[in-house]
């Protein structure tokens, strides 16, 4: 790379960290790091560092597209593998470090952004829940996915919380000849919800015996809808719960019932 082009600000940060780690360095290397210092801190100060609250994304103004994965092919494959694991070991939080995927925080919660960039392409109509609506530019830039206003037409539904999720029966259930054409839901705000919520018993393919699933943010209404969803097998929706540092899959084959034995 020719020297007269500036380096990307993020790799500047990386390089100057290397400089710090290696104490014995020549004078001009140190001078270079110093010269890059102010510019680098300015850029880093501007970049959002933490996602404070999902609801903060609903401010309405469109967000300019920011950077996506650090390494698109490797990262998207890692996340795809993770999603497969979550779906094959249902109702269990599978840990994953989403922070390592993005140098700059994406406008969506990291796990949601990671799944969206992995699963969506130009043939995947995406529906964004109101809190995520302002991130349309980010989605379109990185995935070319068509953004639909009508949740029925979506193949991928990104919802910030259960209260923003459309009724499951409204979403695409798939075709009897092509059950795979149903919608996949990525639901944030459930896995890390600190409220006590429901204790559920989960069973189905992928589970040798019934396990307890702490569906913190899930409501009884969701559990009732889920029973209907399962009854329509092989049609039905698949849900991936996106936490801060884990995913949990709720495939359509999964049975959920309240632990207290309510029918």
């Amino acid at each position, binding site marked *: *790379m*020719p020297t*007269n*082009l*500036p*380096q*990307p*600000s*993020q790799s*500047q940060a990386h390089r100057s960290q290397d400089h710090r780690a290696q104490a014995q360095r020549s004078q001009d290397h140190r001078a270079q790091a110093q010269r890059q210092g102010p*510019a*680098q801190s*300015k*850029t880093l100060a501007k*970049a959002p560092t933490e996602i404070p609250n999902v609801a903060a994304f609903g401010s309405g103004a469109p967000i*300019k*597209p*920011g*950077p*996506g994965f650090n390494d*698109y092919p490797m990262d998207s494959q890692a996340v795809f593998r993770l999603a497969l694991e979550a779906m094959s070991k249902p109702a269990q939080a599978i840990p994953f470090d989403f922070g390592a995927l993005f140098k*700059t925080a994406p406008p969506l919660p990291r796990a949601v952004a990671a799944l969206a960039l992995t699963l969506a392409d130009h043939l995947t109509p995406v529906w964004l829940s109101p809190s995520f609506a302002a991130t349309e*530019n980010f989605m379109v*830039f*990185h995935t070319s996915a068509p953004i639909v206003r009508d949740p029925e037409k979506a193949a991928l539904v990104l919802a910030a919380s259960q209260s923003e999720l459309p009724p499951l029966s409204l979403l695409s259930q798939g075709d009897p000849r092509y059950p795979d054409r149903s919608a996949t839901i990525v639901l944030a705000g459930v896995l890390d919800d600190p409220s006590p919520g429901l204790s559920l018993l989960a069973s189905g393919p992928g589970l040798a015996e019934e396990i307890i699933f702490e569906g913190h943010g899930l409501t009884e209404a969701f559990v009732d809808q889920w029973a209907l969803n399962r009854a329509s097998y092989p049609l039905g929706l698949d849900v991936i719960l996106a936490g801060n540092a884990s995913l949990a899959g709720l495939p359509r084959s999964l049975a959920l019932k309240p632990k207290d034995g309510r029918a």
Partner: protein
Amino acid sequence: MPSTEPVLERKRLMRALALGREDRLIELMGQLGDLPPFEYLRKPQKGLVMVKARADAHNAPFNLGEALATRCSLSVNGNVGHAYVLGDEPTKCLAAALADALAQDPDYRPAIEQIALALEMDLARERAAKLEKIQKTKVEFFTLVRGEDAD
């Protein structure tokens, strides 16, 4: 993206940046001095694009073949620059995207326009030189002496 600038202007600018020669582009960009830091939105990545062609203005387009292209997007102080260039040209693509982003900054706009104009001039000169070279080999069939008139 909503923009106040006329579409044709940016299109012309991006065309010049994408078609210009890499060494020239980098030389001219280097003359701008220290440039502000940028953030990659999409690192230079190469891929194939389908080139469509038409045999005639009223014929249906057909797929001529695939061409290798490089694309890159980055942001400088919130201005997003894009570049698509033919071939495996990550450095040129980066420079072109950077120039496109800087062109949206009023401070840099005149300088980038000068660069684009210089590249356009180069392209015109190259084209003229090529035409001249071809012109020499043009055969004027009607001046050839026909066999039966030779004796």
